[in-house]
């Protein structure tokens, strides 16, 4: 079995996982670039200027966008699960996505169309909303020096419910075109033209990925308990704060740009765990690659399943992720403290 802690060293298991997942990512990217309303092959790219424009201005940036968002959500999910020692933790269940939706909805309802150095105000508002939700949930779940994982999950769910109600109220009171715009934003989309947004996101996201991976040892130890990690030399509170901030930025940015794409942060880390074992030093980088591959693949399904009608990618991930979440709850004997 792949996940046994047998004689293979952790380093060998890490490199094997990376090689396999990189292949998976490349395969997903290849299919995504080829498939769509119009399939593209090399001959078409060489001879047809329209095909080239389609490829470089729409399809390639979209694959990059899916990869960035998928990787960020999955790695943040893996880190949050370890940080809170809760296999059901993920960006959406922690209230981050709900907060982002409220922020963006307010911006859309008030008609904030301007940009701050190339970044639309709606993105900025979405990001700020996500941060407020994170702080709120974290504050509620922390009692003295202890972070209570059960309280955290409940607080996250309740913050999400409040956020949904707030978004509904905003939609109801604003005019119909803006209400529709809010709905489109909430559903989430990977539509992008050109590489401008992709590069801007990468500048913020990539340093967060690297910083988070640098904390994989601390997260591996924290997954075994706060006291155990502390006794093994981890600065628990500092690690919790830094990881929480990094995850919040990752999720805040992806929610602001791509909308609330649920369940990627939940199912991808679990799939990586099932394949390659529980070691966070493998699960974190593994989730980064697998998350990118998963969202690229989900976007291919969204674009092609009912072509020419395009499904929102968030509904595809939720249709796969929702049943997976329930299955995970059903076999919770695998996890002892749910």
């Amino acid at each position: 079995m792949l996940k046994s802690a047998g004689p293979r060293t952790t380093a060998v298991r890490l490199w094997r996982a990376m090689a396999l997942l990189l292949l998976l990512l490349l395969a997903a990217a290849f299919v995504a670039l080829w498939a769509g309303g119009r399939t593209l092959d090399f001959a078409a790219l060489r001879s047809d200027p329209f095909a080239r424009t389609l490829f470089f201005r729409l399809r390639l940036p979209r694959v990059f966008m899916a990869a960035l968002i998928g990787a960020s959500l999955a790695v943040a999910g893996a880190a949050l699960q370890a940080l809170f020692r809760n296999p059901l933790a993920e960006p959406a269940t922690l209230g981050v996505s709900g907060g982002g939706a409220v922020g963006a909805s307010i911006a859309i309802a008030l008609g904030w169309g301007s940009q701050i150095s190339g970044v639309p105000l709606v993105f900025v508002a979405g990001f700020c909303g996500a941060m407020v939700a994170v702080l709120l949930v974290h504050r509620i779940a922390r009692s003295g020096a202890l972070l209570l994982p059960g309280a955290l999950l409940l607080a996250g769910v309740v913050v999400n419910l409040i956020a949904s109600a707030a978004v509904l109220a905003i939609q109801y009171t604003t005019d119909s075109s803006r209400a529709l715009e809010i709905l489109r934003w909430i559903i989430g989309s990977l539509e992008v033209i050109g590489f401008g947004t992709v590069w801007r996101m990468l500048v913020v996201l990539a340093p967060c990925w690297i910083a988070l991976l640098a904390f994989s040892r601390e997260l591996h130890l924290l997954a075994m308990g706060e006291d155990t990690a502390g006794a093994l030399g981890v600065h628990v509170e500092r690690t919790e704060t830094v990881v929480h901030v990094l995850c919040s930025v990752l999720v805040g940015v992806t929610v602001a740009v791509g909308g609330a794409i649920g369940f990627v942060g939940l199912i991808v880390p679990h799939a990586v765990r099932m394949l390659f074992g529980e070691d966070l030093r493998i699960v974190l980088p593994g989730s980064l690659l697998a998350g990118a591959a998963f969202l690229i693949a989900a976007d291919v399904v969204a674009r092609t399943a009912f072509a020419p009608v395009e499904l929102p990618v968030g509904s595809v991930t939720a249709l796969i992720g929702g049943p997976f979440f329930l299955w995970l709850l059903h076999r919770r004997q695998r996890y002892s403290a749910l």
Partner: protein
Amino acid sequence: MTTLLEAQAAEFAYPGGPPVICGISLGAARGKLSALIGSNGCGKSTLIRLFAGLLAPTGGEIRFDGTPLRSIPRRQAAQRIAYVPQATSLVFPFTVLEVVLTGRSPYTPRFRFEDGRDRERAMEALSTVDAAHLAARPVTELSGGERQMVSMARALAQEPQCLLLDEPSAALDLKHRAALIRTLAGLRDSRGLTALVVTHDLHLIDPVFDHVFALRAGALRAQGRPDEVLTDAVLGDVYDDPHVRTRRVEGRTLIWSN
């Protein structure tokens, strides 16, 4: 007899709460087994968490080998002091070997994984607590007692000079309780291990332990050899129970409450 890990007039209170530890001065003697006893909620676990560096005293000081604990970098402290918490509820199905290998992390540089030697040490630690056969099992499938042994093995893999145990025998059956105490005594005799053990198993203390500290309401009420502390008068005071009776039989102290 020198002390390795020492509390000097240590005080502790949670923010906004009443004092839990009220100016305690005591030290775990080098190469000796010391027991920490007292009624529920008297501050034993808080005191041992202060010793482990997991809590910072709000007054006084904790010293390791004469140096203030707070001035020793965390990872260096983890190479010297290991702590086994009271209950370990592991959520994720890590294998036992993965858990025990984390005991080597204070010695492993960042971005490096444990090497073959670390694995050997981890397996040795598992053998010491008679749990080598569990190495490939997920910890979530183990019984409470088996998990306790795995926590102990993880602490031993740290190769500490000082071991802090918070009710290590709580989830263990009769046989494994005795085995745990034998293991501790063996490590003391063979490697000069210093240990401070919070325990409610009073009958296991005498004659194996060298020293006993008795706490009541966050203060030290009595200390000394087991036969000096485990008496009707001291235990009656510490547990606030006038019905406690003790009797020495065949070199051990038997304790019960009527």
